[in-house]
């Protein structure tokens, strides 16, 4: 593990900010306690610098945290669905519920009555802290990320504006996903939200987190965390669709725990923002558990995307498969850094990790750092990464049918992405993601 030294961007986020923030809340002990402890850790920890392996290609020193205005969480409000949200929902498939978060604050929350009757709980985190404090506490504890992520994680928890809590009881299968919208509206703010997904044994849960904003004219930071837990034989599909406008820098820390024979699919799509980092950990906690980790990104202009992953095999007979694909044009850049870690007792592990990059321009740049750390001796693991360009033969073929070079390149990007999209189980979710990608890539 690398050591972290105090960097140039040592926090000056004033302690006063936290007090104002915490003072504005009267929250259950489960949350207030976690918040205060997180603030303490945040102030004690140094910022990770480019000297740390995990942050070598993404310079946190260039993010002006101290100049941002932390969003003071206000209690949930009950607004009607706004036009932009309704517009997206109108083009999306079936859903079991809708959550709208504005800079972390829960502004709208609805669950189909039929789904609610089946025992599924969808609430704000705050309400969950009242009613299910133990589940929340445990999930948060388990989700503690690696040392390199700790600083941001602490900030995320300390400033947590809100979030949602989805609980699917034993054996209940959600017929369609919850569609959550994380909306950032005010430039210059620092806000934070969390997604909790908990599926009891044999349950099926599905969520799509969609992140959006207009183009903002000042640096704005959105912090996000996701804690996704599947008990024995549970099935979870989780999608994070990031289509922020320019000006937004986004950091998402996602933690998956898969129990015995549980199957979890996570899918990260990065399209928007100036900088977007997702740190995704899958902990294969029970024998026979299965984690499929998928991601797609398309970067143009000077966008920077960073994906940092851990497939942690803590139990034997588990399977994990990671497929991340990115395409870049203009001066876009990306970094993938992934690790498969197999604990000593995790025999008969099956773990795969693939990152493929497609560069469409001279000015674009991708780094790929796949890695293995294996302590068991009877495992099947592979990891690989490629960085390539579109094939001339394919390009000419498409152009000889009248497609401009740009159209041909973009169509080839679609083709490149299709393999990953095809792995999303729910058709409605797949269609929504495809549409968002089409909108970004343009044809």
């Amino acid at each position, binding site marked *: 593990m690398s050591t972290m030294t105090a960097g140039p961007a040592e926090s000056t986020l004033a302690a006063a900010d936290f007090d104002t923030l915490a003072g504005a809340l009267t929250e259950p002990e489960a949350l207030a306690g976690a918040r205060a402890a997180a603030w303490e850790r945040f102030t004690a920890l140094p910022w990770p610098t480019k000297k740390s392996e995990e942050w070598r290609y993404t310079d946190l020193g260039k993010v002006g945290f101290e100049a941002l205005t932390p969003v003071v969480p206000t209690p949930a409000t009950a607004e009607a669905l706004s036009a932009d949200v309704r517009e997206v929902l109108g083009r999306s498939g079936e859903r079991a519920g809708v959550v709208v978060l504005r800079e972390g604050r829960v502004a709208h929350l609805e669950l189909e009555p039929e789904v609610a009757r089946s025992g599924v709980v969808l609430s704000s985190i705050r309400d969950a802290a009242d009613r299910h404090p133990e589940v929340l506490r445990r999930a948060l504890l388990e989700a503690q990320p690696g040392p390199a992520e700790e600083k941001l994680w602490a900030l995320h928890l300390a400033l947590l504006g809100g979030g949602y809590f989805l609980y699917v009881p034993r054996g209940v299968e959600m017929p369609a996903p919850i569609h959550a919208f994380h909306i950032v509206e005010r430039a210059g703010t620092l806000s934070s939200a969390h997604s909790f997904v908990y599926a009891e044994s044999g349950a099926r849960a599905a969520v799509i987190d969609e992140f959006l904003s207009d183009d903002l004219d000042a640096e704005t930071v959105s912090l996000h965390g996701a804690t996704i837990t599947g008990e024995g034989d549970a099935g979870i599909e989780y999608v994070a669709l990031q289509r922020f406008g320019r000006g937004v820098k986004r950091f998402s820390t996602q933690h998956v725990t898969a129990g015995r024979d549980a199957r979890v699919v996570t899918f990260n799509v990065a399209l928007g923002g100036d900088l977007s980092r997702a740190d995704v950990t899958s902990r294969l906690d029970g024998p026979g558990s299965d984690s499929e980790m998928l991601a797609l990104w398309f970067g143009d202009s000077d966008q920077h995307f960073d994906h940092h992953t851990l497939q942690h095999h803590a139990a034997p007979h588990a399977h994990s498969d990671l497929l991340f694909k990115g395409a870049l044009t203009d001066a876009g850049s990306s970094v993938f850094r992934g690790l498969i870690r197999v604990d000593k007792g995790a025999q008969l592990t099956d773990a795969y990790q693939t990152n493929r990059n497609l560069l469409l321009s001279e000015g674009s740049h991708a780094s790929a750092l796949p890695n293995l750390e294996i302590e068991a001796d009877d495992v099947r693991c592979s990891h690989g990464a490629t960085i390539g360009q579109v*094939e*001339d*033969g*394919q390009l*000419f*073929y*498409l*152009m*000889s*049918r*009248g*497609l*401009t*070079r740009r*159209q*041909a390149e973009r*169509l*080839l990007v*679609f*083709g*490149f*992405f*299709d*393999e990953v999209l095809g792995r999303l189980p729910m058709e409605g979710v797949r269609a929504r993601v495809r549409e968002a990608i089409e909108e970004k890539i343009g*044809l």
Partner: protein
Amino acid sequence: MSEPLLSIRGLRAKVDGEDGEILRGVDLDVQRGEVHALMGPNGSGKSTLAKVIAGHPAYEVTAGEILFEGEDVLELEPDERSRAGIFLAFQYPAEIPGVSIANFLRTAVNSRLGEGEEMDVFGFQRTLTEKMEMLRMDPGFAARYVNDGFSGGEKKRNEILQMAVLRPALGVLDETDSGLDIDALKVVASGVNRLSEADEALGVLLITHYKRILNYIRPDRVHVMMAGRIAESGGASLADKLEAEGYDWLHRAVAAV
């Protein structure tokens, strides 16, 4: 006589960045509504000519000109040539995993319509289904990835499907007949004939090694390419002679020059 659909004069070309010339002075005229067959031994330059007409970036034209409907096309990008009405059915079509035939062809059709005039999905689907029926293709084909895992014959049929949807003024068919069984050959040939009937001005340059396709698509002229030049031209009977006698007599004739 009106200006030819395609007029090639003194065309010389080589692989970009290399020395040896592949095309060494090609002269060829195709009038509107005519079918020309281009034959010749392996490696004589037929595909190179086809690809140079379509604007393949791997080749450099060192001399000569290609006029299409009177316009010099050598300065045009491949996509501009396509939109101008030139179509090449490839001898070896590229495979594009992840891109469906329907998606690809709709993009291609829309690329030649103005902004805001794009064909709607249903209109396009109708056209595509109709052309696929004409070529006796399974409707499920439209959803398959372009040429990905296709058999040789399926690839060739897919090329003609694209020609049928894109309706070019000139079709250059590079060995579209090879790899086809006799039934498929008839279907593809009748597809091309239907296109000729629908558009009497359609010009076809049909590159082939075999006379059998010429029994279905009657050529107005037959040319033989040898070592980068048109060594002999004649009527349909020239194909019979080549079938019976091979290229030896031409080799000798070329060597004697």
